[in-house]
């Protein structure tokens, strides 16, 4: 069970604001995390605590394919992202890097910045502890659940090649 304080954003949070390209000369997760969201929310790094949850509206993670975006979010301590929709490359990258994501417009509408939220990833169940309301996210197709269960694409590839 994941539990944390919500950092809420609007539509089209792009990968350039999640981690600006000027920091893409490193692949170190901690260094990337120290600049996470700085062009959209300069206080994010200061405020975020381990377990916290990002909630956003449409098309989260649009723009470039940089995996540095989910890497920096994960390393910042964020445990999960809930959005109306995700941009498709970000969606793949999140699954592949083990960053839990859920699509649930009802939850997004019912959660405010600063609320405390609890998430059961396996069940797709979202509870807004602040308001007491619960929401059910869309389930992943079986193949994607398998990817998540084996711990991401690298483990899947290992198994497929017999290593």
């Amino acid at each position, binding site marked *: 069970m994941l539990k944390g304080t919500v950092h809420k954003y609007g539509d089209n949070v792009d990968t*350039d604001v999640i981690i600006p390209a000027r920091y893409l000369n490193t692949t170190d997760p901690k260094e990337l995390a120290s600049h996470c969201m700085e062009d959209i929310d300069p206080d994010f790094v200061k405020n975020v605590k381990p377990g916290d949850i990002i909630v956003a509206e449409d098309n989260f993670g649009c723009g470039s394919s940089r995996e540095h975006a989910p890497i920096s979010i994960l390393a910042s301590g964020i445990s999960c992202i809930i959005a109306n929709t995700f941009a498709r490359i970000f969606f793949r990258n999140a699954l592949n890097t083990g960053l839990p994501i859920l699509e649930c417009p009802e939850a997004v509408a019912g959660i405010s910045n600063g609320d405390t939220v609890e998430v059961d990833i396996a069940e797709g169940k979202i509870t807004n502890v602040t308001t007491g309301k619960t929401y059910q996210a869309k389930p992943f197709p079986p193949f994607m659940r398998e990817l998540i269960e084996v711990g991401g694409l690298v483990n899947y590839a290992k198994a497929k090649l017999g290593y």
Partner: protein
Amino acid sequence: MGQTITQKILAAHCGKETVEAGELISAKLDLALGNDITAPIAIREFEKIGAPTVFDKERVALVPDHSTPNKDIKSAELVKIMREFSRKHDIKYFFEIGKMGVEHTLLPDEGLVGPGDVIIGADSHTCTYGALGAFSTGVGSTDLGCAMALGETWFKVPETIKFVYYGKMPKWVSGKDLILYTIGKIGVDGALYCSMEFTGEAIREMGMAGRFTMCNMAIEAGGKNGIIEPDEITMAYIKGRLKRDYKIYKSDADAVYKDIIEIDVSKLEPIVSFPHLPENARPISESTHIKIDQSVIGSCTNGRIEDLRVAAEVLKGHKVHPDVRLIVIPATQEIFLQSIKEGLTEIFVEAGAAVSTPTCGPCLGGHMGVLAAGERAVATTNRNFVGRMGSSKSEVYLANPAIAAASAVLGRLGSPEELS
């Protein structure tokens, strides 16, 4: 039930007769691509798998183009990881500085991508190659790392939106304007998870440069891929270039589309996308009040020889405005040389432009033209997000090469028609 070109290509690469939208498949790859920002992470993930080498040393392309020539020590270390990996695994298509170019212009010009291919690249603008009638899409580094080991990857078969462009294109209107207008019409997530199929008489009459530009920006509408059916223009382009066999696929007349959108291009004028989303598209005539500090002509979107010719045609006999820095970046070494041979480079330098070796540099605010707080640039690039070209307090306006060139002379957004 008929199939779209995208469905047919994906079906052929997963050993099926047909595939349905929404179906999850594992498809064989004709090429996997990485650059100096994405490949180092892909290499790290590849090494975790434990595969002795890549699935095919002729089907992996590694292009150091984003922070090159190395802009700082950290970037140099990243390129070194790519170079050493390429040597260790005898990767045939690692492009060293002096031979490289902006990846999405370089690979088609080098004949490494062709009609009917399935291609992934750890770069979101990998969708560019759809202009050749290939299925091509961007992925992340872990996807690339696993693809380098497996030679295949998983896809959800996309639904397709068909765009029909009809009418005659007015002077100074290009593929860039059609795609900016289209993104303005449907929004930056208007084609989320979908294939964008570009058709119609305006596409059939458009050269390859404009087609590459349009498919390049499919991602800016959230698209999975942009695609154009091959025709005699495609054939003329690949002739003598393409290093592999190819196969032509076309959509069936009864193929199923999520939506069909018709656009009359004869009514368009050049488009400028205002900060901070590509969907903020406005006609140039409503944009002439915007003063600029910088103009950038280049990138995987508009750095081809045809783009440089248009820019030179506009700039010839003019000087860059004293308040503006104009930066021109040919996308590949071949284009750089061609630009010199045709006298275009001379026109740029005489006008007062800085001409650079191929690099993605300023497009992503990396180097070679980063903006300070409060500065504005017009650019032939593909994104105008907050902080994209530098300071989070700078602004980027997206336009075609003619507008970028004319604006550099005028000191504000404007059309070539305003130059005497």
